[in-house]
């Protein structure tokens, strides 16, 4: 059961606002600043997803992915095995909308995915591996692990605010 499940019209221009917000925070406060904001978002705003992950249950996260990527018109697929949930995004609706607005994605733009996944998995039996495979394309993996270790993420381009 999703804690937040909006219906009705979409205001996709908020992806432009997101681009500006991450650029603003990233350029002034670095990746640590972004990490703090996304940690609060992942663990406090999405508290129910995070609490479920801490309990070893990824079902709300997978439902969140599926519901909102479908609602936004993404080209994506989710595959789940015993040890891993993988979302492959072939066309990201957020990047697509930025381009429609004539905007260039900030170097920090995909941190909303990378750092959110990282923070969701912090202190849980899961690890996040997010690979940006091209503009508007990525592979997001949530893996079960036996011991806590460091999150991993990879970016094709230089990271933001590093």
């Amino acid at each position, binding site marked *: 059961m999703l*804690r*937040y499940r*909006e219906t*009705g*019209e*979409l*205001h*996709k*221009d*908020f*992806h*432009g*606002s*997101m681009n*500006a*917000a991450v650029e*603003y*925070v990233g350029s002034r*406060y670095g990746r640590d*600043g972004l990490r*703090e*904001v996304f940690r*609060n*978002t992942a663990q*406090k*705003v*999405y*508290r*129910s997803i995070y609490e479920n992950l801490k309990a070893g249950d990824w079902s709300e996260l997978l439902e969140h992915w599926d519901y*909102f*990527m479908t*609602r*936004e018109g*993404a080209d994506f697929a989710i595959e789940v095995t015993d040890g891993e949930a993988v979302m492959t*995004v072939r066309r*990201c*609706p*957020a990047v697509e*909308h930025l381009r429609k*607005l004539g905007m260039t994605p900030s170097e920090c733009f995909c941190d*909303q*995915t990378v750092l*959110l996944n990282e923070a969701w998995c912090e202190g849980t039996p899961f690890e996040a591996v997010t690979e940006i495979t091209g503009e508007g394309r990525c592979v997001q993996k949530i893996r079960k692990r036996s011991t806590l270790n460091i999150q991993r993420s990879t970016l094709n381009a230089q990271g933001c605010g590093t």
Partner: protein
Amino acid sequence: MIPSDQFVRFYNEVFKFLDAKGGGALEAYYRTVSEQQERHCLALFKAEGLAGMKAYWDRIAVEENCDMTCTLHADRLEIVMRRCPSLGKAMDNDAGAFERYCDHCPGWILPLLAKAGCRCDYDIIDRTLPQCRLTICPNDPQRASRIRVSGL
């Protein structure tokens, strides 16, 4: 990706983060947002005046699922927000709403309206209620824009 439906809950966390930094960091952010919004609004507002503003906010009312009325008069545009989904979502939020969440709206709107040659009486009404009222008029050297929390 943070869904566009849920951007405002992230925005709410950005406000908390910047407010904690102090030194006017949050107000500086509002000014930057206002400059960024010029891309979407300023040409329309300058070219079509109050009618252009009505067209912009009528679109926002639909896309953001607002319960809002924009009434164009000969000398002013009146906007009555009866259910603001932005504050509504910030409040329907396990992280809790930033206590001055409403301030971001006049924070970006007023500077942009000034550039379009207009002033605004912005009544937040109550920062815990998802309602507000705006009256936008052409600039008058005798009257400046103002922000108030009338409680009414």
